[in-house]
């Protein structure tokens, strides 16, 4: 009895002591024929059930159709607004679409993207985190989270999400998508000034270039990362394919310049169209390359007299630089006996000055190398004592020295 009572109330009304056993027995005592009405009711119930089932099926199908139509309509409107740059309207439309299809991950992702565009990062993040919980390997979701993290200056999270995106699942064109994400990661790291962190990523990027077009982008990133040799190789490879590629020429010129290959840099710069506009940095490089070439006594095709002139000028410049540098340090350059490097080099230069006059050098070209070697030593010593020369002929001479050293290596 207790098992069939509700809250202590049973069907035993006052004065009506119905034992459960008796009730059960009463029920059992009903002859089989008395079940006929129940059978009939049951049949009617089944008929009603079938009818209601059919009605519900029709109703729910119509409902789902309506819901899907509305969801698609709002989504399409949202997409149109988003592509028109109206993120605010897009968010409302996407939200409406999601109202009808709350579990649609495409809608959620697009809404998150629209929220990111509207700089509503926290809202976007919550959608994306939810999506990520459902599909942690999704490249697209990880990428969006990486973008949000980078904008919110959560650097470690950003790198983590970028890596998850790189190694994540992409539905269409996964190689290209991964390459693009890695490129974005490289740019993110370089924008942060983390060139060291970017180097392995850029190298991996250059290693996996999916198409020729992308090679230029990879080479540009190699250039930004300071991987000059690899960048030059890549730009040269591009130039083999397309000799007149202006971007590749600039890139190759910059890489050559950074590798102290001024003649090569000048060559690339000069192959550019006249109309090609260079940025200030590249323009400076071009000018410096020209100056280095103008001052370079080792340039091919120079006459002996010209070579001697350049060498004598370099020697004079270096002597002057050493002298100035010594003065800056409050030291007498012509102290006897010479003690410091600068004094010793200056003394050597003074000692050889009669032999290494322009005329003597023109007459004895074999002395040019020794004279220039001393000039470079003096520039080196002065650079160590007084810092690298920032401009003028001293800088040209110093760059020339670097170039020579690079060539020798």
């Amino acid at each position, binding site marked *: 009895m*207790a*098992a*069939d*009572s*509700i*809250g*202590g*109330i*049973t*069907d035993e009304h006052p004065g009506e002591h119905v034992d459960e056993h008796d*009730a*059960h*027995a009463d*029920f*059992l*005592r*009903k*002859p*089989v024929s008395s*079940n006929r*009405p*129940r*059978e009939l*009711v*049951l049949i*009617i*119930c089944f008929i*009603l*059930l079938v009818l*209601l*089932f059919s*009605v*519900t*099926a029709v*109703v*729910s199908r119509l*409902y789902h159709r*309506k*819901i899907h139509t*509305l969801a698609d309509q*709002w989504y399409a409107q949202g997409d149109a607004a988003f592509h028109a740059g109206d993120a605010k309207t897009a968010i*409302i439309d996407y*939200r*409406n679409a*999601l*109202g*009808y299809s*709350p*579990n649609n991950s495409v809608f959620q992702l697009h809404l998150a993207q629209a929220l990111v565009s509207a700089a509503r990062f*926290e*809202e976007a993040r*919550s*959608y994306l*985190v*939810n999506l990520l*919980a459902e599909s942690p390997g999704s490249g697209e979701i990880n990428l969006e989270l990486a973008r949000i993290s980078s904008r919110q200056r959560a650097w470690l999270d950003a790198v983590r999400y970028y890596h998850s995106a790189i190694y994540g699942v992409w539905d269409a064109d996964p190689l290209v998508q991964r390459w693009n994400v890695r490129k974005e990661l490289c740019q993110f790291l370089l924008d942060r000034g983390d060139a060291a962190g970017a180097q392995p990523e850029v190298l991996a990027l250059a290693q996996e270039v999916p198409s020729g077009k992308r090679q230029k982008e990879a080479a540009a990133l190699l250039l930004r990362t300071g991987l000059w040799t690899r960048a030059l190789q890549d730009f040269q490879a591009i130039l083999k394919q397309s000799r007149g590629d202006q971007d590749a020429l600039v890139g190759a010129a910059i890489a050559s310049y950074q590798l102290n290959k001024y003649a090569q840099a000048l060559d690339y710069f000069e192959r550019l169209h006249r109309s090609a506009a260079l940025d200030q940095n590249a323009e400076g490089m071009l000018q410096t390359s020209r100056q280095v070439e103008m001052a370079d006594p080792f340039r091919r095709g120079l006459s002996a007299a010209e070579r001697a002139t350049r060498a004598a000028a370099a020697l004079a410049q270096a002597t002057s630089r050493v002298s100035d540098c010594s003065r800056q340090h409050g030291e007498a350059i012509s102290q006897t006996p010479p003690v410091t490097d600068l004094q010793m080099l200056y003394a050597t230069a003074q000692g050889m000055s009669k032999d290494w006059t322009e005329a003597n050098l023109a007459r004895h070209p074999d002395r040019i190398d020794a004279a220039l070697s001393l000039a470079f030593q003096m520039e080196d010593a002065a650079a160590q004592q007084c810092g690298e020369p920032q401009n003028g002929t001293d800088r040209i001479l110093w760059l020339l020295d670097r170039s020579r050293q690079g060539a020798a290596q």
Partner: protein
Amino acid sequence: MSDPVSQIAQPPQIPQAEVTPAPVASEPTQPLGRIRSIWRFWTREIFTGSEDRLFLFLAILIGVFSGLAVVCFRVAIEWTQFAVLGSTLAPTVPRVFLAPAIAGLGIAFLVMKIFPQSRGSGVNQTKAAVYVLNGYISFKTVIGKFIVCALAIGSGQSLGPEDPSLQIGAGIASAIGRSLKLSQKKIRLIAPVGAAAGLAAAFNAPISAVVFVIEEVIGTWSAGVLGAIVLAAVSSVVTMRYFLGPESLFRVPPIQIAHPAEFIAYAVLGLAGGAISLIFLKWIAYARPRIQKLPRWSKYVQPAAAGLLIGLIGIRLPQVMGAGYSVIDEALHGQFAWHLLLLLAVVKLLTTGISFLSGTPGGMFAPALFIGAMLGGSVGAMEHHFFPRLTVTIGTFALVGMGTFFAGFLRVPITSIFMVIELSGNYSAALPVMVSSLIAYFISHRFQAVPLFDMLTRQDGLILPSIEERREQVSLVVEDAMQPETAIVAAPSDTLVVLAARLGENAQGPILLRARVGEWRLLDPAEVRGLASDPLNTHTAGGIPSKGPLPMIFPDEALEEVLRWAGDWPVLPVVNRGDLGKLEGVLALADILHAFRKAAAE
């Protein structure tokens, strides 16, 4: 087998050929005959077996019916919303302003003229039907609830579809039970079965629905009805999911607890939830009787006035209109700033109160969840603001807030815990929601003695059993009443002389004979004394007449259960469950009555 009852009850009485259809290939009517045989077999199985078997079968049938009805109900609400407010989440101002008010007029007419029984949320009406009307809920009420609630919720009244679904399910069950001419007892039991089915389908959460119906409607974990309720709830959810898909009402973000200190944050949420739920309860308790006292004509305009107010609010905050599942979903995903969340919680409380007090039929579940989610989110966001190291997401707070407010407002703490677990599908949510729900529950309980649904029925002049009061009643056990040292225990080999000596001259206490392990009998002290006085007597205790065997009772048994035997025997042996030969004490009717009186006095 001569008993006619047994004869009818035995299925083997049916000829075997009919029970198990033997297919005969040459029989031209074989398929029809086979179907008929199967039908007969099953109808006999169902109808001629015990009524319990039929009841379980009906539970499934009711579940399917309720599931279908709830699908139609939800679709009706959505379609009403499309028609009245349009398809966007932010409807145009004229629609927001006018739709609830105009619909309110229609609702008032329907409630006053055609479906007067469809008033209220549906929970206390179902409870009243169970306890007062012997489980009777008219089918007209079901139809009325369906139409009026669809119109109310679809037009933006701040109410939910769960409680009406509960009543719709209960009404369907009651109608089926009556049609099948079930016994009165079963009809009374069948309404909660339908209620669980309706709620489960509306909530897409069968466990929570079962727990709620047990916690709020039935009040006891009765094994007899539990099976049927579970069957009905599961079958209704399966039916609903077949048509509307398995997705829960809102998508719940992942939850994890990083540090035990986070429970302090949940405790704060519990305090806030308890306070807000208490304010809401007090407001309804204060305002409802006063509004009910207003002239009858005003009832025709109350829903429209409520609609007008809600429309005005909805122009600025359309989120508070209707059930608000999508807004809960957004809150769970941290889509709102804390001040908006708090504003939504307060305004939703206001609009829900207005809708409910105006007499508009509709449920309190969805609004309670809404207020809880917003409150939880805002508390979480504020805590994040002051303690940025807190790792819990705002969505988690919103989820726990739902359970917290639910426990405080509806006073169903167990349902709220199960609900959060079921919605999140994550047991990590259990502990936070336990902490905050219980705090909210105790605050609400401390300052508002009567829970919401009981309060509503009492305001309507009905005194229904309060589950909460019953939960707090101390149930007495045998141990509380037994007397440990008043009986003499005799072994069968004890001589009567020795026994009489132990009995003493004046002692009248019973003598319990341990006949063998697990069998206790009663010896008459006067007889023992008389036989022992005969010098030629060589009898032992086992050799003289005794009464019994006595029913054995155990110290942990409920005192109410023992009452049935107490009058038949002067004392009952209370024995150890591990050693049936070991007497722990004795229990007499007087002891039981004394224990009950003592407990009542305390």
